[in-house]
């Protein structure tokens, strides 16, 4: 029972670990390049969830400080500010990989990684 209670107390971290593993499984097993990009996005989302959960405080309010109330508990603002960088990098990586995928599709006519590998090996053997 202590393990069950411990899991409930860390439920956000557990969810982020499971999301990370799901994303990694998608990247490793699917040979479609578009699905690989979706897997990378799922992994990034799990990291965002982990980071924001670290900053959460029970009964804490959003860090909009009001002049009158000095004794309110606020959520940690630092992880929320830092994870903006992560979101921007995620958008940039997604856009660049999508543009590369468009080029690959024009060159090979398929998005399947195994078929692209076969095409390339066939060309070099001849």
């Amino acid at each position, binding site marked *: 029972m202590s393990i069950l209670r411990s899991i409930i107390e860390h*439920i956000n971290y557990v969810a982020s670990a499971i999301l990370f593993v799901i994303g990694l499984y998608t990247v490793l097993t699917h040979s479609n390049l578009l699905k690989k990009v979706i897997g990378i996005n799922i992994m990034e989302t799990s990291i965002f969830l982990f980071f924001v959960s670290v900053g959460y405080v029970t009964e804490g309010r959003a860090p909009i400080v009001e002049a009158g109330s000095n004794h309110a508990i606020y959520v940690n603002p630092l992880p929320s500010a830092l994870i903006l960088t992560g979101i921007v990098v995620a958008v940039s990586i997604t856009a660049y990989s999508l543009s590369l995928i468009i080029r690959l599709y024009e060159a090979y006519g398929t998005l399947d990684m195994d078929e692209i590998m076969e095409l390339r090996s066939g060309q070099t053997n001849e």
Partner: protein
Amino acid sequence: MKKILAIVVLSGLLILLLSSILEMPVLGSIENPSYNETTQYYLDHAIEDTNAPNVIASIITDYRGFDTMGETVVLFTAIAAAVSVLRAFHDDSNKKKVEE
């Protein structure tokens, strides 16, 4: 075969992650080591330093403004990379059509 191998390896990774995650401080406790004096300084001094009630805005544009400038440069680099990949061949093909 490949999928079974991936499932075995990833379940091992999941057990590793969970066993270390369950040792972390409880979700939402104020004793969390990340809630340290840096956060306390930002919450206490943000109004007198920057005169903005939103502490996150004052962190990302004033205390760590150089970091935010790096983020905008990252966005610019992403556009430059995507445009150079997608547009380069287009312009050449258009020119060739015109010449022919």
